[in-house]
């Protein structure tokens, strides 16, 4: 089936990077559509190069296509050159698998990983020929769905999305498929669109924004009220209890053209309990669920053999924390044996010599650069954010890196953190200078790159009550840092545009009223806002003013304990009083240990869903929790321990 291909083909020799639109990846499917099957169009609201590697969409693509009652295809945001040609000729958005019109699918499912892609979502729905507002759609239109980390506050998109999925998607897509399949079988007539949405709202983990009415008192948001008695007041996230049950993707897509993360990716665990207070991913994906080592080994071996990649990344939020990481890495390197050289990448390196030790074991040949994320410049600041890395930990890591032949070190920091003083900001420069000094003992021209991002408070973190720094304050801190490092030989400072940080902040904690702003910005041509060359702050400030909304109120204001937050009707399992206590602890500069290896402090993520951390080895990581040197050997370890030699991957 090549529905729109004959119309698309003549346009492709006139656009940049036409291979974005042809599909044909290794592992791509040509599913057979039929009226009995629910057709999903899985979408990433950014370019192909950024969207294709998204592992969440690839997992769902396979799980859905394995079902007899579903088909799944993929689409990505066309770059503006192709978009113009499509609009000129009235050609709709299409799937890259069979080049079928997007409007012919039953569910259009977006992955939302970044706030600045929201206008692209509207643009893609519009390009599909579907009304952008949920209220304007009829039974003939696809259901517009979204999942991914940004959906923990979907309110800015509430008027545009029909359904929102919270948490892991592996199981819930089946339940959604069944509801939509029955609705389709009824000729889409059963209770019209409201009927199917009401049924979907009863699926655990599914939030249907239209089933809730916002209540305001003046400018204040008082909460959302369910429209019907059978609609849950609180929507809980979905959590897959055991990753071993989901060895996906089994056939990772191998694109013909270059994309980001262009390598084999094997997820070794989901969730993180380090408890970094700025990190939304670490909070909302709890508990820790490790994949059994045997399954990781077979997914790596099988994946390399099938794809022809010579690089594999072991992905997670903190891979060096995988229990038994050293043995796993040794096994993978040994298994490659005499075959072609394989590079094993760890996406997030722990800031200590142990982490570098593993990197040394992995990286053969050129040792160009290593990246660490101390996140803040002083111990005080790191206690506030609960990133409990001592200066000694960083210096031992940097010493290990330079002494093992690396010549460049990159350090990630956040600025605009709660309680941050100029001393904390300048502490970043101090750390960088000391790192260069350490490097001088080993190499003539050591290079330390400091990358600084402006902090955006996120829902379901202890910092969700914090008033974000203004653009001017962030820029002042960046200038301070730039001036302090100007004469430091070997130190380079890079930073993200604080203006983009401001807009992320508006959407990160915005309510439904922000929807009008997103629509206005999109109608004024503001797509691909996450691309520097396309981002325009005035589009956003003018749209805020047009709708009578105040950026200060949304971003820079500290929230109080009693304020109703726009996401209070959603649950990531975390108790709100736990998060509030953690916020108070942050302000008191009190750290919180990693609960994988210390007694449970009941954040709610495990107890609320009757699930537990699953780790592959009873041995706590070397160096203890977060390098704090805790004595872990003598303490009780409150986790489920897998039996040694548990061959889940083979069953």
């Amino acid at each position, binding site marked *: 089936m090549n529905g729109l*291909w004959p119309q698309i*083909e*003549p346009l*492709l*020799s006139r656009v940049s990077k*036409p*291979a974005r*639109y*042809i*599909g*044909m990846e*290794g592992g791509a499917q040509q599913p057979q559509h039929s009226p009995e099957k629910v057709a999903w169009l899985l979408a990433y609201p950014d370019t192909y190069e950024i969207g294709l590697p998204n592992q969440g969409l690839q997992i769902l693509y396979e799980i859905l296509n394995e079902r007899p009652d579903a088909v799944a295809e993929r689409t990505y945001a066309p770059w503006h050159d192709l978009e113009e040609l499509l609009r000129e000729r009235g050609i709709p958005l299409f799937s890259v698998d069979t080049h079928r019109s997007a409007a012919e699918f039953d569910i259009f499912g977006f992955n939302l990983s970044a706030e600045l892609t929201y206008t692209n979502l509207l643009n893609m729905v519009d390009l599909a020929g579907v009304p952008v507002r949920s209220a304007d759609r009829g039974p003939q239109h696809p259901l517009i769905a979204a999942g991914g980390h940004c959906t923990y506050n979907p309110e800015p998109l509430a008027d545009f999305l029909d359904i929102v999925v919270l948490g892991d998607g592996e199981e819930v897509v089946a339940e959604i498929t069944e509801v939509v399949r029955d609705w389709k079988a009824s000729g889409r007539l059963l209770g019209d669109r409201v009927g199917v949405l009401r049924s979907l709202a009863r699926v655990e983990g599914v939030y249907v924004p239209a089933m809730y009415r916002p209540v305001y008192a003046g400018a204040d948001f008082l909460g959302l009220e369910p429209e019907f008695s059978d609609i849950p007041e609180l929507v809980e996230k979905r959590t897959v209890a055991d990753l071993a049950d989901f060895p996906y993707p089994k056939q990772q897509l*191998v694109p*013909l*053209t*270059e994309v980001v993360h262009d390598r084999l990716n094997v997820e070794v665990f989901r969730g993180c309990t380090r408890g970094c207070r700025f990190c939304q991913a670490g909070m909302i994906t709890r508990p820790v669920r490790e994949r059994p080592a045997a399954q990781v080994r077979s997914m790596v071996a099988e994946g390399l*053999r*099938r*794809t*022809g*990649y*010579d690089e594999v990344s072991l992905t997670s939020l903190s891979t060096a924390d995988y229990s038994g990481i050293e043995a796993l890495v040794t096994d993978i390197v040994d298994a490659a044996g005499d075959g*072609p*050289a394989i590079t094993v990448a760890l996406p997030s390196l722990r800031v200590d010599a142990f982490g570098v030790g593993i990197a040394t074991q992995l990286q053969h*040949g*050129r040792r160009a650069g290593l990246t660490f994320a101390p996140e803040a410049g002083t111990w005080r600041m790191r206690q506030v954010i609960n990133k409990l890395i001592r200066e000694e930990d960083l210096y031992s890591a940097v010493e290990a890196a330079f002494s093992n032949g690396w010549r460049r070190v990159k350090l990630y920091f956040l600025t605009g953190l709660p309680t941050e003083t100029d001393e904390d900001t300048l502490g970043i420069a101090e750390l960088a200078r000391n790192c260069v000094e350490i490097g001088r003992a080993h190499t003539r021209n050591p290079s330390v790159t400091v990358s600084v991002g402006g902090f955006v408070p996120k829902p379901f973190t202890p910092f969700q009550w914090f008033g974000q720094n203004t653009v001017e304050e962030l820029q002042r801190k960046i200038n301070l840092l730039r001036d302090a490092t100007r004469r430091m030989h070997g130190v380079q400072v890079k930073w993200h545009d604080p203006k983009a940080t401001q807009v992320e902040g508006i959407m990160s904690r915005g309510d439904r009223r922000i929807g009008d702003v997103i629509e206005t910005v999109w109608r004024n041509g503001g797509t691909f806002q996450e691309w520097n060359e396309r981002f325009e702050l005035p589009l956003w400030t003018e749209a805020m003013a047009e709708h009578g909304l105040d950026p200060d109120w949304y971003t820079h204001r500290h929230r109080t304990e009693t304020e109703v937050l726009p996401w209070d009707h959603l649950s990531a399992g975390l108790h709100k009083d736990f998060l509030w206590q953690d916020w108070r602890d942050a302000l008191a500069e009190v750290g919180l240990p990693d609960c994988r290896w210390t007694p449970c402090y009941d954040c709610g993520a495990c107890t609320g869903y009757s699930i537990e951390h699953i780790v592959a080895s009873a041995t706590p990581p070397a160096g203890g929790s977060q390098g704090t040197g805790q004595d872990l050997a003598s303490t009780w370890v409150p986790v489920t321990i897998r039996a040694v030699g548990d061959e889940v991957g083979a069953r």
Partner: protein
Amino acid sequence: MRIRLRYRKLGKVRFTSHRDVARCWERAFRTSGLPIAITEGFSPRPKMHFGLALSTSHESLGEYLDLDLLDPESAAVDIDALPAMLSGHLPVGIDIEAVAIIDRSAPSLQEAVTSCTWHIEVPGLAHADLLPAVERVVSASTLPIVRERKGKPVSDDLRPGILHLEVLDPTAAPADFAGAVLYAELATAPRSVRPSELMAVFDPPLLEGRVRRIHQLITENGATREPLSPGAPPMVFATASAI
């Protein structure tokens, strides 16, 4: 052992770049287990040598690739079965058609190839409309163009590089092309003429539709042959006439 492959690049895969295709080959060597020689040094790469790069979105019936196989492992490679075996590891639309063992001292494809033949679709024009325009180009003694070299405009004459040009008889045109089709032989040495440059010398300039490379040719001592068959007799062009 050095081998030379001839392959096609047709259909959707034509929208991949030269660099994309090179990466597809590298993965195909690994998934197929072909014992290819690897360069020394910090970032080892398979020893493969392409001929003239094909522009993104152009198709080809005549692409070539030289590969160095590891010795002695190469002795176990079934050369006759290689095209079918390796094609299965490449994207749909890239198909190996022929393979031959060549001498390591043979000149590289880049050095040896002197011209390429092309089918160029001209959308919106009928056969008869195109004939007079082609006649003007063919009968011109010089075709001055200005091109950029190292950031500076340089005048050049395109005419010597146009070795052959005609409008294909509609019955001889590829079935999947619409509109009139040019058949051109364009030199690659001493300097290369691209199909887009040819289209630009027409007055008014012609629109470029689909473009398909038909052959890469080596002309030596008055004899013309394709790169895969050293010593073969000169190729005979069924349509050679106009120039």
